[in-house]
């Protein structure tokens, strides 16, 4: 077999791919912010007694967990404008961010719900007995404790999000994967281009994982014996 992995090509193509890291990270981070906000709201809905809201949250979570990411992106970007012309103004990056954020919110809602459940009931009781309002209790005591329990799962969700931004190329967004694909079809060096972009994803996630470890260590301080 003729092995001819062209390392020099990989190094040559790397800067072109790296140039698109900002758009990849931009999509991932904004989508994550949306996902955390919606996911938290959904998880808190289960703490209320509003039957209708709980039902709506159930439907949301069920739907967005079930629909494949790609189907959802096509639905938003290519489907919605047909029904509602106002969506023709939606650019591909925004569509990708919305799609990614809405979907991951469903997964985060489940992670947050479990994280809230893992905070002992006595913590809230102590807050209320101490005269705090429920809002104060959640902000000062319950959320910080739940956050620590939610972090590992939330980190996994963010890693999925980073990787799923590659699907945005199907909407015409040029991010690191799309760039690698274009480089590959110019040079016919498919393996090298895709291997390079694979390594770039790996590097991004290694860096992120390291950052998460630091955050975990920080949040763990109160619980170290």
């Amino acid at each position, binding site marked *: 077999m003729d092995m001819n992995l062209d390392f020099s090509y990989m190094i040559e193509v790397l800067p072109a791919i790296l140039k698109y890291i900002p758009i990849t990270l931009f999509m991932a981070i904004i989508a994550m912010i949306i996902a955390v906000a919606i996911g938290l709201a959904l998880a808190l809905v289960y703490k209320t007694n509003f039957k209708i809201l709980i039902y709506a949250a159930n439907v949301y979570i069920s739907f967005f967990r079930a629909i494949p990411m790609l189907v959802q992106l096509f639905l938003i970007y290519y489907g919605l404008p047909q029904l509602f012309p106002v969506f023709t103004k939606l650019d591909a990056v925004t569509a990708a961010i919305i799609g990614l954020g809405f979907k991951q919110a469903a997964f985060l809602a489940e992670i947050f719900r479990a994280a809230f459940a893992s905070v*002992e009931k*006595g913590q809230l009781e102590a807050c209320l*007995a101490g005269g705090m309002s429920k809002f104060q209790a959640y902000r000062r005591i319950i959320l*910080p404790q739940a956050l620590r329990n939610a972090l590992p799962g939330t980190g996994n969700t963010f890693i999925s999000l980073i990787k799923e931004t590659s699907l945005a190329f199907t909407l015409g967004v040029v991010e690191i994967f799309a760039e690698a694909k274009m480089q590959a079809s110019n040079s016919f060096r498919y393996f090298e281009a895709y291997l390079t972009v694979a390594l770039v994803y790996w590097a991004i996630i290694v860096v992120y994982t390291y950052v998460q470890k630091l955050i975990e260590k920080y949040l763990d301080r109160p619980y*170290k*014996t």
Partner: protein
Amino acid sequence: MLKVTNLVKSFGALDVLKGISFEIKQGEVLAIIGPSGSGKSTLIRCLNYLEQPQQGIIEIDNARLDAAKPTKKDIQHLRSKTAMVFQNYNLYKNKTALENVTESLIVVKKTPKAEANKMGMQLLSEVGLEAKRDNYPVTMSGGQQQRVSIARALAQKPHVILFDEPTSSLDPELVQEVLHVIKKLAEQKITMIIVTHEMDFAREVADHIIFMADGHIVEQGPAKEFFANAQQERTKKFIRQITSESEDTIL
């Protein structure tokens, strides 16, 4: 200064409190005793509305809550008059000992942080734990955690401190340090209601005893008379049982 009138509480079909009435004066210590399942913990948890009674009136100082029509304001007012020490301490796990004590001061009473810290340190020293100011709950023994939680309760300057079996979760060798702190509070004439299984302690510290069984107050009275001269058969039997149990442990 604390008056409970005809308090009724049920969990579904289970009637836990079947019309409880009693009264205590400022500076008094009331011990609530009785077999498990008698409703004593539920009763004390109704007093700050952690449990929601269906009927009855709770009056503490100038706070008044009618369980049939409680308003958010009534509940908040009632809670501002009470503090609670829990069986499982329930210290805020993400806060240090000092922060646990100052949390309500800062968040609820809006005390400036420096002043709150000063008050917090004084309270920690009252329970003998100044040195633990920066420790998180998980690094402290059960007895230390319970003492911090007593300091936290004192910080609220409540009209009454509610103790829900404060020593039941503690290892035997740690019980005394907590009881000792509570005795000190009794000497300072701090009003307290204590649900407890520690009969010797109740006898020594309480001014008043309530004996509960099956959701009723079976007997109540001044502590000395209560133990020396119980009227009801049920009470006598309970006192006998408890006393012989503690003798058993000595043997």
